[in-house]
């Protein structure tokens, strides 16, 4: 059973008091779970949050399933999100994403067998002047080339 750390619970309690309604704390609480649970939110975490926040599971699930940044299944240590919207697609990101998945022999959204990577094609990340670009966990990596993108993954510990 997933349970937030003591600090995590404290964080959620503060968030519950931070906004005008307690429901506004659902998104921050889900982010916290994701941070403490290796990058994804499990079903049992929803029950835990429901109890902790005194909000019905259905209400939390509604938010959880609507937003794409909450991962519904385990992701690799490095979540590699390659922007494939217009400017980046023009600059060759679709080929970069395909090459990643081919080299690591995974489909989109699947985790590599060593648990290191999950690759996703995502929509515009608002860094089109530095296309082609991708986001690995929280960080943007810009002005890529097919070679520099491959090297970047190799250099990750």
């Amino acid at each position, binding site marked *: 059973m997933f349970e937030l750390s003591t600090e995590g619970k404290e964080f959620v309690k503060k968030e519950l008091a931070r906004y005008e309604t*307690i429901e506004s704390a659902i998104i921050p609480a*889900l982010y916290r779970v994701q941070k403490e649970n290796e990058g994804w939110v499990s079903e049992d975490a929803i029950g835990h949050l429901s109890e902790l926040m005194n909000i019905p599971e259905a209400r939390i699930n509604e938010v959880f399933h*609507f937003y794409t940044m909450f991962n519904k299944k385990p992701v690799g240590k490095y979540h590699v999100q390659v922007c494939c919207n*217009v400017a980046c697609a023009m600059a060759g990101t679709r080929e970069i994403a395909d090459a990643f998945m081919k080299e690591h022999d995974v489909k989109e959204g699947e985790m590599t067998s060593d648990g290191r990577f999950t690759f996703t094609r995502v929509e*515009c990340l608002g860094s089109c*002047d530095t296309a082609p670009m991708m986001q690995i966990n*929280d960080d943007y990596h810009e002005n890529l080339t097919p070679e520099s993108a491959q090297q970047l993954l190799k250099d990750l510990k």
Partner: protein
Amino acid sequence: MEVKLLTEHYSDDNYRTLEGYKAKGGYEDLAKAFKMKPEDIISEVKASGLRGRGGAGFPTGVKWGFLPNNGETRYLLCNADEGEPCTFKDRMMMERAPHQLIEGMIISAFAVNSPKSYIYIRGEYVYATRVIEKALKEAYDAGLLGKNIMGSGFDHDMDVYVGAGAYICGEETGMISSLEGKKGQPKLKPPFPAVQGYLKKPTIVNNVETLAAVKYIIRDGAEAYKKHGTEKSTGTKLFSVAGDVNKPGNYEVPLGYPMIDLINNECGGMKNGKKLKAAIPGGTSAPILNAEEVERATLDYECLAEMGSMLGSGSIVIMDETRCMVDMLKVIAHFYHHESCGQCTPCREGTGWLHKLVSGVVNGTAQVSDIDLLCEVANKMKGRTICALSDAAALPVLGIVPKFRDEFQFFIEQGYSKVQGRANA
């Protein structure tokens, strides 16, 4: 020629700190605003002709004027959920000039008498969020937020709310739903947010760039601000330029600036000496312009509307002669299908149909009659839904397909791109 109001100090790394910001006259305009009557600030903003910089282009002062005088708590919500593809102006402003936004917001909050505001930032903008949070802390510590700001007697609290990946939350009522802890689904209008918004209280939702511009209207006065731009499209505007140009980036020019000058001067011309084929003038929702139209387009609300397109968020994608329009539309159609919130049938089903039809052209399963079907579906999606996402998905189809119909027909009949040939088939 660039005219730098909002972007003047972007290259100064220290500008993002309170100290660096104050060294350039930061928060002096707030002090000036506090000496004015709130209604005079609203009049000044109205007189400036400032229009919403997020995409809809609604006059800001008029929006503020919709607030009812019923004694209810008013909220100010800054739309920093920059999601329109190829727009990156708000991210850069938050990263390089966070205090400029905060100052613009306090002035605006004072004008509309709001005790509380939120900056709703898209979840992907992790770094921008950090910069804004740090700036907010600095502002609180310096007494620029909280009780009795600068001894004015005005109290205001400001907070950040981080989204979690949904384009639809950039729509103002979708954003309100999201902030309320719900799915980010838009609400029927009326009532408009100014009357019944966040928690059913009067709420003003303005874009990052709009709120920052308020600071300069107070600094220079409406008359001076209006000297930039055209008669109906006043002021300067940030344009995010991407695609096949030598120097993509954010550029601040007066509204009415010729689009071709922006490409040739500020952006250093076409990359690799290629020929211009087309440009999207205001985010992917804006119908595409062909090269001939780009030559005569000026960057203002009126000219682009007359050409059947729009200024939108001011994000421009330049495409050269090697770009396949079928491929471009496939990318765009995928985006809207992915981002439809699913609430209204014409949008939920229509975006799927558009993506399926254009994918069929690429996959070799389409018939020539599907070209008309694409337009028919798009036409049926317009003006039939709660929010504008459905229209935003339909408009690029209605721009690209008629203007580049030959490319669609060729692809269907020959099985490969007319522009890129068999290599990419």
